């Protein structure tokens, strides 16, 4: 007689909402007539993500001071940090879905291809370029990816973590290749992301096997117990190293970042926004859980490693960011540098480091979605104008767009009165608490240099003459307007009065396992 595992359905509601919406989306794709699919799919994806967000908030309120529970036969941990990250992912996911759903900017009414199966550049492809058809599979695919991310940050077991990693990655590989314009670039981004992503998950898996061999278990709490009682051997440290490599790849931390600029540039911009915000949150959530829950009592095994790659990531992100001529690539290098800043928070003590990282992830996710939303507005005849030179004198054409972009870039640079400053302050303070001040000095220097490449774009927008045949600024429809309003407001509020959200992150900063 096999006993059914304990399953707390209440604790799983956020995941059930998102995966349920994705599954219904697949059915809609199969049975609904073509012309109703777009509105139905958008509505479904929004119901799933907003429902997921609402149920995490509800769970957090219902649990109150409860430290959290382990459910599904020990495979999932529903705790403060997990719920905070799940809410962040679902919220940012809903904003990304809104960007996906924008119909007002492209003359063909969508950033996504009409039919992905038609070879790029063929006569049929040119015919379909202006067709209003859309490959609406992107909505269920994105919803599956959001579900995978929410599972990823709650995984209490290395196997669940691996499955969640694949559930979030596989749909992302596909939607990277579905741009309507510049399809060759988009497909190339998908191939690169797929091959390198599969390569990285093989490393993660080998790490899983070595950790299993060393400890005889894949449960994070079991690994912790084994590390505490039996100490760490070569096999275990090697396994941990490989697991970290796999996760750092997803978090686009240098030196595992090589895919990031190419994929961010080639993918459709709404997808880039989605990857930059949600994947980052999910990957760091898994990193935190792995390092704090499984290896928290043997932090000498991972501290030097994280210390090193934090420095490499900040320096590589900033130095290569300086040389970029494309806005999307520049933001990609900015995301690599921010991954380094986040790692300084990970190094902090389990208490303040965890809450600082949670806050930083939320702040960075909101700002970066906003920045990519602005990128979707600046267009010329061939879609988005992403060359830096094309942005010259943008403030003359559209003071509002330039103003919003300037504000978001200042937030990414970490100027006071924006969320970027609060987040950086929190993670740097957490790192100094554990005596990692050399790292903080490097972080401050690289922040200052990063300020230069953000301000370079600001100067270009305000103090250059616009070109005669320069790009125009599209008038965003309702979805993009909502995204911009939410992200700008949040960036301002989290910078001016961050108290309540910092408190929330503090109270959420608990991991069970």
């Amino acid at each position, binding site marked *: 007689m096999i006993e059914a595992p304990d399953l707390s359905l209440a604790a799983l509601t956020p995941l059930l909402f998102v995966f349920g919406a994705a599954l219904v989306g697949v059915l809609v794709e199969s049975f609904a007539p073509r012309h109703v699919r777009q509105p139905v799919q958008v509505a479904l994806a929004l119901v799933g993500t907003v429902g997921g967000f609402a149920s995490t908030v509800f769970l957090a309120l219902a649990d109150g001071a409860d430290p959290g529970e382990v459910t599904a036969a020990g495979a999932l941990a529903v705790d403060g940090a997990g719920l905070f990250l799940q809410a962040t992912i679902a919220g940012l996911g809903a904003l990304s879905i809104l960007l996906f759903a924008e119909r007002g900017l492209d003359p063909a009414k969508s950033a996504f291809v009409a039919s992905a199966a038609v070879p790029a550049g063929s006569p049929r492809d040119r015919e379909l370029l202006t067709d209003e058809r859309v490959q609406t599979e992107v909505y269920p695919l994105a919803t599956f990816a959001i579900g995978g991310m929410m599972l990823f940050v709650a995984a209490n077991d290395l196997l669940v973590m691996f499955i969640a990693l694949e559930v979030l990655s596989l749909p992302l590989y596909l939607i990277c290749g579905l741009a309507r314009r510049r399809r060759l670039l988009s497909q190339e981004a998908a*191939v690169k992301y797929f091959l390198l992503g599969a390569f990285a998950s093989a490393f993660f898996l080998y790490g899983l096997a070595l950790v299993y061999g060393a400890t005889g278990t894949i449960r994070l709490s079991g690994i912790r117990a084994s590390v505490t009682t039996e100490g760490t051997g070569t096999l275990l440290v090697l396994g941990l190293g490989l697991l970290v490599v796999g996760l750092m790849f997803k978090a686009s931390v240098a030196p595992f970042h090589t895919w990031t600029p190419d994929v961010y540039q080639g993918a459709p911009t709404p997808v880039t926004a989605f990857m930059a915000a949600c994947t980052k949150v999910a990957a760091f959530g898994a990193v935190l859980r792995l390092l704090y829950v499984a290896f928290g009592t043997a932090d000498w095994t991972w501290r030097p490693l994280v210390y090193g790659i934090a420095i490499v990531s900040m320096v590589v992100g900033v130095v290569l960011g300086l040389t970029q001529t494309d806005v999307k690539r520049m933001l990609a290098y900015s995301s690599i540098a921010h991954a380094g800043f986040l790692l300084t928070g990970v190094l902090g003590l389990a208490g303040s480091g965890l809450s600082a990282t949670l806050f930083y992830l939320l702040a960075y996710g909101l700002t970066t979605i906003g920045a990519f939303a602005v990128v979707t507005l600046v267009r010329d005849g061939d879609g988005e104008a992403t060359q830096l030179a094309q942005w010259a004198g943008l403030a003359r054409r559209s003071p509002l767009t330039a103003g919003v972009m300037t504000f978001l870039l200042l937030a990414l640079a970490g100027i006071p009165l924006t969320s970027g400053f609060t987040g950086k302050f929190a993670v740097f303070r957490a790192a100094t608490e554990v005596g990692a001040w050399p790292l903080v000095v490097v972080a401050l220097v690289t922040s200052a240099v990063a300020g230069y490449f953000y301000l370079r774009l600001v100067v270009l927008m305000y103090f250059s003459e616009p070109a005669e045949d320069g790009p125009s600024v599209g008038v965003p429809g309702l979805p993009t307007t909502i995204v911009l309003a939410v992200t700008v407001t949040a960036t301002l509020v989290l910078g001016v009065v961050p108290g309540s959200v910092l408190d929330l992150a503090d109270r959420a900063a608990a991991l069970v396992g």
Partner: protein
Amino acid sequence: MTLTNYLVLAAILFTVGAVGVLVRRNAIVVFMCIELMLNSVNLTLVTFARATGTLDGQVIAFFVMVVAAAEVVVGLAIIMSIYRTRRSASVDDANLLKY
């Protein structure tokens, strides 16, 4: 035959796969090398399952097979779409995105 031999064989296979990913040019071959890496992990897992006397390793190996199959579906679809445009599956030809 001791269990160590299987672990060493798996490590060698994993290395062969990893080197293959880095040096081969055809996307399909690169992908096959990744599959080789996944299968060497499966060998490691079942060996450790035997060594530690737990069943987890064997169960994980099944999950890995399922995931590998899902990866094939997605991967070949992506490689096919780029092949139909470019008439080439070489990862060196896909070089529009750089710097």
